[in-house]
């Protein structure tokens, strides 16, 4: 098995940068790389550079908890994320790269009547949109997740759950490499360790980027930046409804018994799944105050461990092996912001907060179509930056599961 996975690791081609491209993408994370990949594969546009401040997938793409699901609460989001889930399911076949994609099912536990109402609403909305999510009682939860403590350590009794059957996980850096390799083998340039310091302007139009190693001209610039998006947008005098909050995560030592499902809690805002290595991967809510600090905080780890072990008591005997934090671009309505910015030549994909990994294929596919055709695809039209001005915010905080 392992040797097959190594054989399916495809090489990434590295090129000498040119001084001009049709498209320059700022940010070599999942969304930047998948946009480049779909530009090359769907639209034949390969004169493209992805400019990354660090190494590819060094930001939130390599720091998330790798969950792929479409059990959102509003139709626009369900449609978008379910398309992304389907693209993920076909990604290994399409790219030939192993991303360790595995369908597990997502059990979202509620502990109060309020939480049950949220999950009931989610199930009904999902089913109306043709997405396979069902309502569970406590006995069903115990059957699917035998390790669960239905009393919630005496504090957070399990009243029920929603079960999103097609939810999956995939290895996050493999996903980034699959898109990077697919793009670079078709001629896309990946430029690592190159901070973008400004934008080139011709009148009101953005015509390229200024970098620490000189300017790069571009027909179109896309910001696919995560935590530092407000700073990049400010270069184009664009002001965003986005705040940067750290989100922490950790893995434990191996759990031999195995946990088949992805388990999450509505009120406790924590979630756990098992990695392909057997480690338990745990995340919870983001820090209340915005910051750009990636230091793992003991308070966050203590809080996450307390909450998740109330649901799954076996975790009390496990050790935290590794901790990290990512910088989430949390939008004001907890939905992504994709498309035109009002500045010619400058597009944006941001507001990916704590929900961006699952959206990598669909977000990239839609942004590539917008760049190639000049028309915003219907799938992402509700998520434009101008929605806030028109009082059409896409409020879906409960579906983020991180607050």
């Amino acid at each position: 098995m392992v040797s097959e996975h190594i054989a399916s690791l495809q090489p990434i081609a590295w090129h000498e940068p040119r001084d001009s491209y049709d498209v320059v993408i700022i940010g070599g994370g999942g969304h930047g790389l998948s946009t480049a990949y779909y530009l090359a594969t769907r639209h034949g546009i390969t004169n493209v550079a992805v400019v990354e401040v660090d190494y590819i997938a060094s930001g939130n793409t390599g720091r998330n908890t790798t969950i792929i699901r479409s059990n959102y609460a509003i139709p626009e989001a369900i449609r978008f994320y379910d398309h992304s889930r389907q693209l993920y399911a076909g990604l290994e076949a399409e790219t030939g790269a192993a991303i360790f994609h595995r369908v597990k099912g997502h059990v979202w536990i509620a502990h109060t009547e309020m939480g049950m109402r949220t999950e009931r609403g989610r199930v009904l909305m999902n089913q109306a949109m043709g997405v396979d999510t069902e309502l569970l009682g406590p006995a069903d939860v115990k059957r699917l997740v035998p390790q669960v403590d239905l009393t919630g350590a005496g504090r957070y009794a399990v009243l029920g759950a929603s079960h999103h059957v097609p939810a999956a996980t995939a290895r996050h850096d493999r996903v980034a490499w699959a898109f990077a390799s697919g793009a670079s083998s078709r001629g896309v340039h990946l430029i690592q360790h190159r901070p973008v310091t400004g934008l080139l302007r011709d009148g009101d139009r953005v015509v390229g980027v200024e970098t620490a190693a000189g300017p790069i001209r571009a027909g179109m610039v896309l910001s696919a930046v995560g935590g530092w998006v407000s700073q990049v947008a400010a270069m184009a005098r664009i002001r965003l409804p986005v705040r940067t909050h750290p989100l922490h995560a950790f893995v434990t030592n191996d759990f031999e018994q195995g946990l088949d499902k992805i388990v999450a809690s509505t009120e406790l805002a924590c979630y756990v799944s098992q990695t392909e290595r057997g480690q338990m991967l745990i995340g919870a809510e983001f820090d209340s105050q915005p910051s750009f600090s990636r230091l793992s905080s003991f308070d966050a780890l203590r809080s996450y461990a307390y909450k998740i072990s109330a649901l799954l008591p076996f975790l009390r005997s496990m050790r935290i092996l590794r901790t990290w934090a990512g910088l989430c671009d949390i939008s004001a309505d907890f939905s992504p912001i994709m498309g035109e910015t009002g500045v010619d030549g400058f597009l944006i994909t941001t507001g990916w907060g704590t929900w961006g990994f699952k959206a990598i294929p669909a977000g990239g596919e839609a942004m590539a179509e917008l760049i190639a055709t000049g028309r915003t695809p219907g799938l992402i039209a509700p998520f434009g930056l101008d929605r806030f001005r028109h009082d059409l915010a896409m409020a879906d905080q409960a579906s983020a599961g991180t607050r």
Partner: protein
Amino acid sequence: MHELDCPRCGRRPLDEFTFGGERRPAPDWLTDPDDRDFDEVWVFENPAGITNERWFHSAGCRRWLTVRRDTNADRVVEIA
């Protein structure tokens, strides 16, 4: 950041406080009234550096504090 030094209550753990958001006027160069409305309702300055913000001591004296904080290090500079 683990604690805030409340001027009335002294050093208390962060989870006694509720984050109230940054204090931020719309910038002068925004002159269009609709632009200013959008800015004041929705936009965050989100600076990587010093920010002025409000915190509510919800589990303490229940007063509002004004905190100057460096978001790069997530460290308090001054509390009033």
